[in-house]
C-alpha cells in the first residue's frame, strides 16, 4: 500500500459519501419520504471504491438494484443520485429510473439493473465491442452471491472466456441473497470455485479492506486490459442493513452485524492510514464532515427540484414517436 495523500483522501471521500448517502436514504425511507424499494450498500463501500477508482474514465461498469455505492464511487453527482431517489427532473435518469436503475452513459455507468444477473452478459458484450474495435477498455460487472445461480452468470463466463472479453466479474459476497444465506445456497463453497471450470482467472479478497480490493483490482484490470482475458473477483463482505429498507432481518444471527461492524471498511481505513501517520484524524474528520454536508445539501436540493411533467412518460420509448 503505497498511496499518495490525494489518492487516500479520494478513497476516503468516496467511502464517506456512500456511507452518509446510505444512512440518509435509510432514515428518509423510514420516514416514508422515498418511494419504492431502497437497497442499502452500507458495509460494502470498500468494494465499489477500491475497484472503481482503478478504472479509467472510458471503462464501463454495470451494477444492480444496490447501485448507489457504485454510482457515487463512479462520481455520479450526488444531486443526480438524490434527484433520482426522489423522482425529480434533476435525477440521473430525470426521475424515470428510480433508486434501482441509475444510468449515466457519460461516466460509463451502463446502469443499475433490477434483475439479478442482468448486467453480466451486457458487460461482456461491451468489453467484446471494445476488443473488436481495437480499444483497450474494460468492463466491470458487479453482482451478489445470489446471482451466480442465474443462467446469465454461466452464460456470460462462457462467452467472456470463449471470445476474450476483457470483463471483470466482481461478486460482492455479503453472505445473503435476500434472506437466504450463502451457507445454504452457495453449493460450490465459494464463487471463485465456480470460475475455474470456465478457465476464468479468479481471486478472493477481503472486501472490507479498500487497499486489498484496490490491489486485487489493479492486477485483474491490467490483466484484462492487456490480454483481453476475463477475470473474477470475489470480495467477502457484509451488508449491515436488510435486503431492502424495511426488511426485518430476522434471518441474521445475533452478534453477526456487530462482528462485521468491528471490521468496518471506514474504521479499517482510518486505522490503516492514521497508524503509520499517512493522514491525521483531523484530515479524515474534515473530509467526512464535508461528505455529510454534501449529502445533506444534495437531499435538500432534490426536495426542491421539480417533478417531471407527466408527458415524459411517452418519451424515449422509441427513437421516433409515431
Amino acid at each position, binding site marked *: 500500500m503505497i498511496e499518495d495523500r490525494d489518492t487516500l483522501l479520494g478513497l476516503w471521500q468516496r467511502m464517506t459519501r456512500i456511507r452518509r448517502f446510505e444512512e440518509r436514504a435509510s432514515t428518509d425511507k423510514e420516514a416514508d419520504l422515498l418511494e419504492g424499494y431502497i437497497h442499502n450498500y452500507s458495509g460494502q463501500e470498500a468494494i465499489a471504491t477500491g475497484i472503481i477508482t482503478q478504472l479509467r474514465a472510458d471503462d464501463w461498469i454495470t451494477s444492480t438494484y444496490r447501485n448507489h455505492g457504485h454510482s457515487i464511487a463512479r462520481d455520479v453527482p450526488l444531486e443526480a443520485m438524490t434527484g433520482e431517489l426522489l423522482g425529480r427532473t434533476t435525477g440521473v435518469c430525470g426521475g424515470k429510473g428510480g433508486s*434501482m*436503475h441509475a444510468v449515466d452513459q457519460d461516466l460509463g455507468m451502463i446502469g443499475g439493473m*433490477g*434483475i439479478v444477473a442482468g448486467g453480466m452478459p451486457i458487460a461482456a458484450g461491451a468489453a467484446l465491442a471494445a476488443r473488436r474495435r481495437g480499444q483497450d477498455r474494460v468492463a466491470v460487472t458487479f453482482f451478489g452471491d445470489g446471482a451466480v445461480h442465474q443462467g446469465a452468470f454461466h452464460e456470460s463466463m462462457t462467452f467472456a472466456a470463449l471470445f476474450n472479453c476483457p470483463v471483470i466479474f466482481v461478486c460482492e459476497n455479503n453472505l445473503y441473497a435476500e434472506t*437466504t444465506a450463502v451457507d445454504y445456497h452457495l453449493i460450490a463453497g465459494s464463487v471463485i470455485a465456480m470460475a475455474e471450470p470456465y478457465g476464468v482467472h479468479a481471486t478472493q479478497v477481503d472486501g472490507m479492506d479498500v487497499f486489498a480490493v484496490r490491489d486485487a483490482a489493479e492486477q485483474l484490470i491490467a490483466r484484462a486490459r492487456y490480454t483481453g482475458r476475463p477475470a473474477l473477483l470475489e470480495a467477502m463482505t457484509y451488508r449491515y442493513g436488510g435486503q431492502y429498507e424495511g426488511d426485518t432481518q430476522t434471518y441474521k444471527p445475533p452478534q453477526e452485524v456487530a462482528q462485521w461492524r468491528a471490521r468496518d471498511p471506514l474504521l479499517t481505513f482510518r486505522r490503516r492510514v492514521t497508524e503509520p501517520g499517512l493522514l491525521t484524524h483531523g484530515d479524515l474528520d474534515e473530509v467526512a464532515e464535508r461528505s455529510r454536508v454534501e449529502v445533506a445539501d444534495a437531499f435538500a436540493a432534490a426536495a426542491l427540484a421539480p417533478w417531471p411533467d407527466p408527458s415524459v412518460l*411517452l418519451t424515449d420509448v422509441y427513437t421516433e414517436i409515431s
Partner: protein
Amino acid sequence: MAITMAQALNTALHDAMAEDDKVVMFGEDVGILGGVFRITDKLQERFGEGRCFDTPLAESGIVGTAIGMAMYGYKPVVEMQFDGFTYPAFEQIVSHLAKMRNRSRGTVQLPVVVRIPFGGGIGAVEHHSESPENYFAHVAGLKVVSPGTPSDGYSLLRESISSADPVLFFEPKRRYWLKEDADLPVRTEPFGRAVVRRAGTTATLFAYGPMVRTCMETASAAEDEGWDLEVVDLRTLNPFDSATVVESVKKTGRAIVVHEAQVFSGFGAEVAAQVAERAFYHLEAPVLRVGGFDIPYPAAKLEEFFLPDVDRILDAVQRSLSF
C-alpha cells in the same frame, strides 16, 4: 369475518398442503421468511423443509424442477417473487410446462402452479410492477388465472392446485391487503366462469385481478353521473368465459375492458375481438380499452398517471356513451 387477499392465499396453501402431502411449495425466500409478501407464511414451520423450501436464485431452475417433480407424483406450487422475475423462467414455462402434455400425447400431466405477484400501485418501478399475464394467455397449454377478491383468491388457488393442467396464477399484489367479509374455506365459481360483480344497464366494465376493485369504485362513482355500470370480473383469462361476456354486452350494448397491462396487444384486444365476433349487432359503440400506456412501467412518482383509475375509466364510459 374480514379476511385479506394475503390471508386467503396463505390459508389456501395451508389447506391444500394439509389435505394432500403431494403438494409442495418452493421458491426464493418462501421458507424461513415466508415470502416477501408473506403468502407462504408458516408453511415451512408447519410442513417441514421437505414440503416448503427455499431455492437458489434461479427462476428457470425453479419452474423446470417443478415440471420434473410434477411428472413423477408431486403437485408443486412455485413462487416467482415478482412479475418481472418470471422472465428468466419464460423458456421453461412456454417451451416445456405448456407443451409437455401435448408432446407426450396426453400421457404426461403437469399439475404445476406458478404463483406470480403482479401489477403496480406500490411505487416499485419496472420488474416489480409489471403485468405479463397476456404473454402467457397467448400460450396454448397454460391456464391463466387472476383473482380480484379474497374469496376468489382462496377458491381459485385451491382449484389451481388441484388442476391437472399447469396454471399461471397472477396475484394482484396491490390488493393483498384488500379485505372482504368471508369465511374460509370458501368455494366460488369454477375456472372458466366470469362473474357479474355488479349488475347494471349503462355499460359493462370488464376486468380481472387488481382492476376489479378499481372498476367497482368506478361504478360507485358513476352513480353520481346517473350511470348504472355493470362490472364483470373475468377471473380466468384462459379458460375464457365468452358466454358471460357476450350476455352482458347484449344487455348493456357497451363494453370497456380495463387492465393495467399496456393496451397494445393486451388481453383487452382478445375481449374486444370476442365481443365483435359474437355480439356485433348488440354494440352501441366500439369496444373501448383502458390500460397502461405503451411504455415501460414508470417510476414511482409517475405511476399514478400510468395506471387506469376511476377518472380514466369514467372518461371511457363517456366516450362510449357519446359515440
